[in-house]
């Protein structure tokens, strides 16, 4: 298995290096084919790891492989050993499976999508590097490697958002993503230091037992420790208040949005929460913070998504909103449900992004929903696939999103039902978000594909070529069966949950009665269908009901369209004061620090000159210094 682990990390790195070195000489197609072959092989390897783990007894389903020891510091109890290696367990392999699976589909899709872009090989080099970093994040055998991967995906995200670095918006969006993520990274780092101080290990395999031992010995786990990781997760997974970078990240090429900013990288935060689930469960009120943040983000982003014009922004806010669901699930202690939603979300959100990419591709870069319409006649296959994805997103049975989302709402209800009044709020927020989700999904589909065409007269959209169509079809099938295939709570069919059970903290909640479950499911289904109908109705034709609603609540509508002015508020509250501080710091830097540094530098230069004067080339002088040194040594020896 260690070979499989090594190859899973080694192949993407090798491909990234190879394509990176030759990126000027390789054509987009060659580089893309190479990258796709690599990604597909990685998927095969992940499947191999999966079957291997399946063959092991349930309580021994983990394989650790150490390749080498990077650092060994300190002695005894304070020793810190940082090994480079992989840790294969159900959790990491699940992530690896959908990363490489969805990843290879998107790689395939990119070959056509990027064919006419300049620097396609550079794009694929970054994509391979991303795959390497993401797999390091997931498969790394300790938190240190996870952190390295964490930084690596951040770097790749930065590089790919700013792929068209000539465009000012793209470059700025890249910078924004990088800076906001830094805040989260600080949290992660602090958490790592603290964990090591408390438990003396960063190994995934050792953390849970040591934690259990520590708790048994009466150590109080500070909730702040869990919150450190939570801040990290918030940054990477775009939760309130650090979500602002993700919508801007849509400046990157659409397949990148699908892979990094929808399916995989943004779920790294959930992965971290799941990985440290035992720690979060033990950390008192930390989980409540997670749950409320998740619910608030889901609702907030869902609202903003209602009135976005840019199709990719709609999807971006819906991603933030869905990530909020996942956080909500983690906060409720239902880590498996969260992971379930991660997987289904990867399917349908990748599908939606790739579909929107096909639309944008067909319209030669047009992203404004109000300049689309009636596209189902031009792009029937894409429209069909997108519709499936939107149904899954909206939570309409039997599409994938329904099952995972319903399960999360079910857990929230069950908690409230079990006597936690605050969970009624969470459940309410979840249901409301579900309604919003159905509404904006319908709005997006209707505006894009239905009704009459608002296209430019000289635009002739055409269906995407085969390499783009195949991933769409595969993902459409997965969005259809991915939910029911992995879990149907009311029928007690929960293979994913059982598979993940050994690695996650168990959910301490009595199951709801069967009838109640069925009732909730029906309710969720009805709400989704109802709001889908409303959304479709409002935005079909000349959108009369929508306009009327906007006129009734002009300020609210304005706030929605303006994304609640979060960027502006941040600008006023954070960026402007920071600018002021920066200006102050600049003055301080120029006057005080530079002065001191220059003084020091001049001093050093002066000494350097002195040394050079001594070093004047005469042998006698050198010999003199030798004798002087010898005398000093003798004096020390005898003194």
């Amino acid at each position, binding site marked *: 298995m260690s070979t499989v682990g090594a190859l899973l990390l080694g192949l993407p790195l090798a491909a990234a290096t190879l394509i990176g070195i030759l990126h000027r000489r390789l054509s987009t197609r060659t580089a893309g084919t190479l990258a796709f072959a690599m990604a597909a092989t990685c998927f095969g390897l992940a499947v191999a790891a999966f079957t291997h783990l399946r063959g092991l007894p349930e309580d021994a389903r983990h394989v650790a492989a150490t*390749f*080498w*020891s*990077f*650092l060994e*510091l300190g*002695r005894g109890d304070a020793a810190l050993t940082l090994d*480079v290696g992989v840790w294969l367990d159900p959790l990491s392999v699940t992530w690896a499976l959908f990363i490489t699976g969805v990843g290879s589909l998107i790689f395939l899709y990119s070959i056509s999508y990027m064919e006419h872009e300049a620097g396609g090989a550079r794009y694929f080099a970054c994509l391979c590097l991303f795959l390497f970093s993401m797999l390091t994040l997931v498969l790394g055998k300790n938190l240190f490697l996870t952190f390295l991967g964490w930084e690596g995906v951040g770097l790749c995200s930065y590089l790919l958002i700013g792929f068209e670095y000539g465009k000012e918006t793209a470059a700025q969006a890249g910078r924004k993503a990088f800076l906001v993520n830094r805040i989260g990274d600080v949290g992660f780092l602090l958490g790592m230091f603290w964990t090591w101080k408390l438990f003396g290990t960063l190994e995934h395999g050792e953390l849970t037992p040591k934690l259990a031992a520590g708790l048994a010995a009466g150590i109080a786990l500070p909730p702040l420790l869990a919150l450190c990781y939570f801040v990290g997760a918030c940054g990477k997974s775009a939760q309130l208040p650090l979500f602002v970078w993700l919508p801007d990240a849509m400046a990157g090429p659409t397949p990148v949005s699908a892979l990094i900013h929808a399916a995989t990288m943004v779920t790294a935060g959930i992965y971290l929460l799941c990985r440290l689930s035992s720690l979060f469960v033990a950390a008192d009120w930390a989980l409540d913070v997670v749950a409320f943040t998740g619910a608030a983000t889901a609702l907030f982003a869902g609202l903003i998504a209602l009135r976005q014009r840019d199709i990719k922004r709609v999807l971006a806010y819906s991603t933030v909103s869905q990530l909020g669901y996942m956080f909500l699930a983690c906060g409720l202690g239902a880590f498996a449900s969260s992971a379930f939603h991660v997987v289904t979300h990867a399917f349908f959100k990748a599908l939606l992004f790739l579909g929107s990419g096909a639309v944008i591709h067909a319209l030669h870069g047009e992203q404004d929903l109000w300049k689309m319409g009636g596209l189902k006649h031009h792009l029937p296959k894409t429209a069909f696939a997108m519709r499936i994805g939107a149904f899954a997103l909206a939570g309409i049975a039997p599409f994938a999103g329904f099952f995972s989302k319903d399960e999360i709402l079910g857990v929230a209800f069950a908690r409230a039902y079990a006597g936690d009044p605050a969970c009624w709020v969470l459940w309410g927020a979840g249901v409301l978000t579900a309604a919003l989700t159905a509404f904006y999904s319908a709005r997006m589909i209707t505006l894009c594909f239905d009704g009459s065409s608002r296209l430019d007269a000289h635009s002739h959209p055409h269906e995407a070529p085969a390499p783009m169509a195949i991933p769409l079809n595969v993902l459409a099938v997965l969005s259809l069966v991915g939910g029911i295939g992995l879990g149907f709570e009311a029928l007690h069919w929960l293979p994913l949950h059982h598979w993940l059970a050994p690695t996650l903290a168990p959910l301490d909640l009595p199951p709801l009665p069967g009838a109640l479950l069925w009732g909730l499911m029906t309710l969720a289904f009805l709400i989704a269908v109802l709001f889908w109908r409303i959304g479709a109705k409002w935005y079909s034709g000349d959108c009369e009901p929508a306009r009327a609603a906007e006129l009734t609540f002009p300020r609210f509508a304005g706030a929605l369209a303006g994304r609640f002015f979060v960027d502006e508020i941040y600008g006023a509250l954070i960026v402007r004061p920071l600018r002021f501080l920066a200006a102050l710091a600049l003055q301080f830097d120029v006057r005080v620090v530079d002065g001191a540094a220059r003084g020091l*530098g001049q001093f*050093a*230069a002066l*000494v*350097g*000159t*002195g*040394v*050079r004067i001594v*070093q004047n*080339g005469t*042998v006698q*002088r*050198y*010999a003199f*210094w*030798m004798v*002087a*040194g*010898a005398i*000093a*040594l*003798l004096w*020390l*020896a*005898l*003194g």
Partner: protein
Amino acid sequence: MDLATDLAATAPLWLPMLGCLAVLLLETLAPGRSGHLGALVAGAAIALAFARLVATAPSGRLPFGMLADDALGRSLTGLLLLVGAAVVVLAEPLLARLRLAHGEFFALLLASLSGMVLLVQARDLMALFLAVELLSIPLYVLAAFRRLSAPSVESGFKYFLLGAFASGFLVYGIALLFSTCGDTSYAALARFAADPARLGATWHVGVALLLVGLGFKVAAAPFHGWTPDVYEGAPTPVTAFMAAGVKVAAFGGVLRLAHEVLPDGAGLRAGLALLACASMLVGNLGALLQVRLKRLLAWSSIAHAGYLLLGVLVVVAAKSHAGATGAAATPLADSAVQAVVFYLATYALTTLAAFGWILDLGRESAELQDLRALRGLARRRPWLSAALALCFLSFAGVPLTAGFLGKLYVLKAAFALGTELIVPMVVLAATSVIALGYYLRILSTLYMERAPDENAPAPARLGSTGVALLIAAACGGVLLFGVWPEPLLRWLGG
């Protein structure tokens, strides 16, 4: 009789010597035509020696009663043989282009290499002295090998004068130690030194003089005066040999003395600390304003001698840390020895890459070896620039390069002793910051400044595949061992 065993165990020592004689014989039989053949014979001798080295395991015996056949000696011997082979690769194309392709170069190289190997295996002061002379005398000639180049001759002459001077100190120190202890073998000296009451002024003075002699060889301040002039004047392959080979060999000798003979004491600690601090300060400050690459590397090599001397100081100080005196090896001292050896390996690797670079693009021309010639080079020679940048990052000890781990292990060994060696440790940290000043200046020259003539064609290279491969391999090693030190550690650990 163990003669055969002894001979077999010391093959890496006498095989280069045999190669040296063979090259001389060739030169006698075919005067003036033995240049390429000499390189071949030298390469073969070194390869044979290396093969013998890796084919056998250290026996722990004392061949001929004067040498060591242990892990330390063997790992350093291996390192030296690799350095020797690299210098052959560097020298062959240069000599051919200078029309200086004489077998003598390789004969001298092999003789000096033989002396180096002897130095790291010596367990007797007589062998030590013989080794120092055997390694030095051919080097004097090698430094002046370009007889018609004034700087080369100047370099050889300076090195010879000061080297002879330093040898005087060395032999005087040996004589004093012999006079006080009546023996020259390390074992006997260690037994003698085990009782501190017996160590009088003669002993201390002897040790101090020994340090002077060896301090000259490792280019420690204040015995460093020759270094910049000699490094600059000597042909670049010879400079590489001095910087990498002599450093490894001389530190190997010092390390064995420190580990096996010298007892811990306030005087010795103060002396070593003085040398270490002076080297770090003088080396780094001297390099700060240098504009010529070879001189800059010379100053930096002085600074590195200082870092390494801190490691030697830890070896000595660790002996009394655990309460054990004399030559009793404590785990602390062992780990410090390993740290120094690792540092030496990474330093040798980086040095070979850097001098290979200077040879490749500097082509023995003062203008081309000037820092100003490197302005904006990254645009026209991206790979070579990256290689040089990597070398200097490794010299500076930036993480993910081998140099970082070298420095880290030495500091780690020092930290293990608590705050006993706080002064040199602080000096190391402070001077490392100063060092960044000139290392990063090179990076900014390469990457941020603009060439005076943007449209000029890319500077020509030496055009030797061997040299290019050597640079690539050494840089690859610097990167590889920076993230994956285990194989190197295991190999050096014996």
